[in-house]
């Protein structure tokens, strides 16, 4: 499918075309490294393509992923091989020899236009859009599949010749055969994901027998605009809209029964909350939603607040228990859920119209075989076994695992691992591979000087996202009548490859010289459409995007007529504006290929080391007088790995590395510049001299602060300490610890509170770690862990089970009746409710450990945010550019975040994010040029009155009065803010792309009150 196959010696093999694999491929290709992306299915996309909306922003995913997919297909560095499996690996990191086997598709993807004629005539033979029946063979799993072609189910096809004859493009190949080839790659990333559990095996829930019991993924499909019911919520038995829907969590996970796995699938709690919220959003008081759960595991960044919103704003009912059965309640399809009320022991029934089983992950069927081929170890649960201090490195050097293949996880964490593994894999490539040989080539730009405007208007329906509210045909007709509009048409998902092709062809056929897209936000999609214009030989700035989705259809869903009228206005505005646009040239500058890493903890050091290893100069600035950060106070991880040894090794490597300069006692004071050419100033103690560092990118790894509370006698009684201090005590005073009889731990102290509403994520595991560690040296010790929800996500559940098995007593408390702690001699008296027994208990504890968790290091993040102009969350953590799809990029280009400065996380997770940040940084640093865009201030020297207003107004001191007596603005220094343009009293300055003419034209277009 691609003319120039990457030189395979220098490529990375990525197995799995889900979101993780795609992200890793995109990162590597952005860093100009070649990628071979294989997937056993006919199209890439993975599970994500079946989701409707994702948490926590409730965005539709198709649109956020689609640009990635289309971009992925276009990237010259990526060789996409669908229907392909790995059948052999030899050699070692840096030089693997791999064998790939590609199954026959029977369709030439280069010729197939996805016209659908073959599917119409022979629906049985062709793989097509999935219905709710998840068992149906799927290929074109969603309407914007990449590669954009059908495939043939050969085994079901009896009359191939007739089939082949229906294809007008002649794309059907009867004699297509499996191909095997050997290639050389430097590294391998395994991103095969996992399977979604099918709950037929759970006979108590009746799945497969009771039509109205569905899995959460099926529910997602039912709610999806591109799903089988086109977004109508209908229960499968009779197509009626349900009035009561229940979710049952942990279906098949966290269990010991037949068909169940013991680990936690990590994502199901958020998944169920999301589905319940979206349902409530759509149907409000017409529907009741109930979630049956054991522990609500909303441990991710801002997830706890999402949980609280579900409860408080959306009135999602939450019922803590594990139902033991679902049986039919009536002949019409209603269902009865039976459960034992927590603490009462009585059996209760509730009736629902529909029940959703929150089914989690199962290791992919291919994973055992694949692991054998790769020569990597799997853990007891058949997921990839990886390192404690490098969670994406498998047991075989040069092979990395990311995403759910490593452990169950959600999309942002998958993307972090994908970027991390891309970073680490990139290290094994020969330097030659990074040479820039294959930048995208565009046809020469057409000269449109003197042409009258010829505008093409393309209106997206974005599935139901736009057309669900806006009358798209009406808007298209209207746009067709606007001045200079030559063609107006709807394009479905405008950002899909198919639509982009249509746009490109239309530009050529109709000799368009300007384009208006009625679609989503230009913030996210402008570059994609600009790229399409360039491919059509148009200057990319001959484009206007009317944001008729995010700023219209989505916000006026309750007023379709108004939304349609506004869509017309916005398109009229865009088209009036685009008439005044003119070709512009981007300004390109040289890039400083060094990085500044702020924060010398584990995250900062790992990011620095990875960059240094890949030959970039790194300045590692630390405010304290020594490296190490918070990890200096940690002795072991939950799996028993030795933190001090790791840390001293890491610090040694960092200090010794020739590409790293460590700057201690450095206080950030100022910052200026642009991505690729930043200047950041530090005041260095104790001499307090000033030093300015020039760098291309910045990684923030300043960490979070251990929380400390004034509660439960902490700092007032010697028997009370934090969980981290307890770890210290176990390590340094084993004798003392071995004398103890009772230890109590209280969870969520200072987290999940009004002051600090989020979950600190690490406390549950830290408590269990310390409990098990204590039991190692003192097996008779009584340990009570008082918790609200145990959040031992993924395989951490194993340790939770082990702790229970070894006698740790877990007692749940509610924030309304927290434990009471009183001093009692050398120990403390802890009184708490025991809900199972329904009574109060008092324990005389020799030690009370409080899980105080993290809070953001407000002092440092506030200063940094101010100096760097970065955004923070309400609780003071750095806010990434996109919580879902850009988890380490900051909103300011050239900034990346790693570690607990982003959100609470454990050491392994911090290291992964550090690697991811380094990988993302490399995508910037690997280029030697930076594009400043075309938005710069330009002076009309004839008009300039040399009044100096611009000279004084410019925040960057760029304009000056030159020898020819007019104000001169160096486009390479101009940041494009436009302040000078709006202050110039002679109207001599125009900010390109925002000149007076298009701005006024837009106003006139918008406000012309004729519809």
């Amino acid at each position, binding site marked *: 499918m691609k003319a120039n196959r990457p030189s395979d010696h220098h490529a990375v093999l990525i197995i799995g075309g889900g979101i993780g694999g795609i992200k890793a491929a995109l990162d590597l290709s952005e860093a100009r490294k070649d990628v071979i992306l294989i997937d056993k299915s006919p199209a890439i996309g993975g599970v994500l393509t079946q989701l409707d909306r994702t948490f926590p*922003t*409730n*965005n539709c995913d198709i649109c956020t992923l689609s640009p990635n997919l289309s971009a992925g297909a276009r990237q010259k560095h990526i060789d996409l091989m669908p229907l392909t499996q790995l059948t052999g690996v030899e050699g070692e990191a840096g030089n693997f020899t791999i064998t790939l086997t590609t199954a026959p598709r029977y369709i030439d993807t280069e010729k197939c236009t996805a016209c659908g004629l073959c599917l119409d005539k022979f629906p049985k033979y062709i793989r097509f859009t999935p219905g709710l029946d998840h068992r149906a063979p799927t290929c074109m799993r969603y309407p914007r599949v990449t590669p954009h072609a059908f495939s043939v189910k050969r085994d079901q096809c009896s009359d191939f010749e007739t089939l082949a004859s229906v294809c007008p493009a002649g794309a059907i190949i009867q004699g297509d055969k499996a191909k095997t080839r050997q290639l050389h790659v430097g590294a391998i990333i395994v991103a095969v994901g996992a399977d979604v559990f099918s709950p037929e095996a759970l006979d108590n829930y009746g799945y497969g027998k009771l039509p109205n019991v569905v899995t959460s993924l099926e529910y997602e499909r039912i709610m999806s605009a591109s799903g089988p019911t086109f977004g109508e919520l209908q229960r499968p038995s009779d197509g009626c809209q349900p009035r009561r829907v229940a979710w049952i969590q942990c279906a098949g996970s966290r269990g010991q029964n037949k068909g169940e796995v013991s680990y936690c699938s990590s994502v199901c709690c958020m998944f169920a909350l999301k589905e319940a919220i979206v349902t409530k*959003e759509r149907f409000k008081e017409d529907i009741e939603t109930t979630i049956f759960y054991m522990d609500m595991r909303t441990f991710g960044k801002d997830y706890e607040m999402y949980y609280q919103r579900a409860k408080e704003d959306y009135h999602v009912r939450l019922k803590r228990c594990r139902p033991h059965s679902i049986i039919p309640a009536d002949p019409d399809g209603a269902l009865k859920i039976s459960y034992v009320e927590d603490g009462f022991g009585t059996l209760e029934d509730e009736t629902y119209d529909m029940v959703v089983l929150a089914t989690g992950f199962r290791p992919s069927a291919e994973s055992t075989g694949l692991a054998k081929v790769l020569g990597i170890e799997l853990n007891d649960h058949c997921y990839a076994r990886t390192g404690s201090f490098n969670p994406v490195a498998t047991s075989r050097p040069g092979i990395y695992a990311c995403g759910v293949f490593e452990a169950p996880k959600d999309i942002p964490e998958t993307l972090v691992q994908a970027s991390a593994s891309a970073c680490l894999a990139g290290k094994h490539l020969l330097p030659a591979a990074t040479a820039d040989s294959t930048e995208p080539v565009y046809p020469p730009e057409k000269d449109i000087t003197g042409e009258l405007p010829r505008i093409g208007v393309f209106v997206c329906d974005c599935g139901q996202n736009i057309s669900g509210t806006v009358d798209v045909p009406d808007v298209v007709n209207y746009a067709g009548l606007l001045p200079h509009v030559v063609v107006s048409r709807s394009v479905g998902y405008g950002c899909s490859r198919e639509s982009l092709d249509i746009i490109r062809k239309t530009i050529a056929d109709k000799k368009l010289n300007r384009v208006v897209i009625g679609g989503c*936000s*230009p*913030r*996210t999609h402008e570059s994609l459409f600009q790229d399409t214009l360039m491919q059509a030989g148009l200057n990319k700035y001959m484009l206007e995007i009317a*944001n008729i*989705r*995010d*700023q*219209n259809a*989505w*916000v*006026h*869903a*309750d*007023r379709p007529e*108004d*939304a349609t*009228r*506004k869509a017309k*206005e*916005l398109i009229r*505005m865009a088209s009036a504006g685009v008439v005044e646009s003119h070709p512009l040239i981007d300004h390109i500058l040289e890039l400083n290929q060094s990085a500044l890493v702020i924060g010398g903890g584990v995250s900062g050091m790992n990011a620095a080391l990875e960059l240094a290893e890949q030959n970039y100069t790194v300045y590692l600035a630390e405010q304290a007088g020594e490296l190490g950060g918070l990890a200096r106070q940690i002795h072991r991880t939950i799996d028993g790995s030795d933190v001090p040894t790791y840390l001293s090794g890491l610090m040694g490597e960092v200090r010794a590395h020739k590409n790293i300069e460590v700057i201690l006692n450095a206080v950030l004071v100022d910052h200026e510049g642009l991505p690729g050419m930043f200047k950041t100033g530090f005041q260095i103690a104790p001499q307090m001299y000033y030093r300015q560092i020039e760098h291309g990118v910045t990684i923030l790894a300043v960490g979070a602060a251990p929380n400390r509370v004034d509660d439960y006698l902490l700092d007032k009684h010697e028997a009370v300490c934090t969980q981290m201090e307890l770890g210290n005590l176990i390590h340094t005073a084993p004798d003392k610890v071995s004398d103890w009889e009772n230890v109590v731990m209280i969870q969520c102290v200072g987290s999940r509170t009004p002051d600090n509403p989020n979950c600190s994520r690490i406390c549950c595991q830290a408590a269990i770690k310390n409990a098990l560690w204590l039991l190692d040296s003192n097996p008779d010790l009584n340990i009570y862990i008082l918790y609200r929800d145990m959040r031992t996500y993924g395989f951490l559940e194993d340790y939770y089970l082990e702790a229970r098995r070894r006698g740790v007593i877990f007692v749940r408390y509610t924030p309304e009746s927290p434990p009471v702690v009183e001093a009692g001699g050398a120990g403390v008296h802890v009184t708490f409710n025991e809900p199972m027994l329904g009574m109060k208990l008092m324990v005389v504890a020799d030690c009370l450990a409080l899980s105080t968790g993290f809070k953001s290091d407000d002092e440092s993040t506030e200063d940094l945010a*101010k100096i760097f*102009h970065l*955004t923070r*969350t309400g609780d003071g953590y750095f*806010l990434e550019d996109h919580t879902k799809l850009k988890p380490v990029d900051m*909103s*300011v280009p050239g900034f990346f975040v790693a570690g607990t400065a982003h959100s609470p996380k454990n050491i392994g997770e911090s290291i992964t994010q550090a690697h991811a940040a380094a990988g993302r940084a490399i995508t910037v640093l690997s280029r030697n040029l930076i594009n400043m865009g075309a*938005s710069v201030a330009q002076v009309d020297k004839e008009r300039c009155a040399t009044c100096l207003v611009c000279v004084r*107004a410019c*925040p*960057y001191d760029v304009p000056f009065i030159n020898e020819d007596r007019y104000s001169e603005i160096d486009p390479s220094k101009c*940041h*494009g*803010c*436009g*302040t000078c*343009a*709006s*202050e110039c009293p002679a109207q001599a300055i125009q*900010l390109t792309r*925002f000149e*007076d003419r298009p*701005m*006024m034209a*837009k*106003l*006139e277009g*918008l*406000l*012309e*009150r004729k519809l």
Partner: protein
Amino acid sequence: MEEFDPVIVAYCCHYCAYTAADMAGSMRLGYPPGIKIIRVPCTGKVDPLHVMRALMDGADGVLIAGCLKGDCHFKNGNIKALKRTAYLKQWMDEIGIESERVEMVMMSAGMGKQFVRIVTDFLDNIRLLGPCPKNTNQQSNRILSELV
């Protein structure tokens, strides 16, 4: 009498308010359709003339939405916009148009909810003020631009 639906032109900074508006969209938080957003790279780019022309061409109110103080992507564009808004209000007073028809607001990119509240409040306030007086005259005035 027909309910008056004000038309508001909201000049939104790409780095904050425009993003907040998108976020309001992804959170599906509704606001009146009379809010029409025009994207600018910085509120420092909002030319007083563009605000005047918006009111002249039929807007009932103009909102300039920029970053929080100290958060301007370009150091101080939002502060300049704030001063310019005060200057514009003087013009409004002189013309005899309620100066509340032009306001500057500040928010961060993450403030989708606040965006909705702010634009809704602003529009409600304009609704109370009634149509921008000029709009009683439907004949749009043309300016013969200079031919230099």
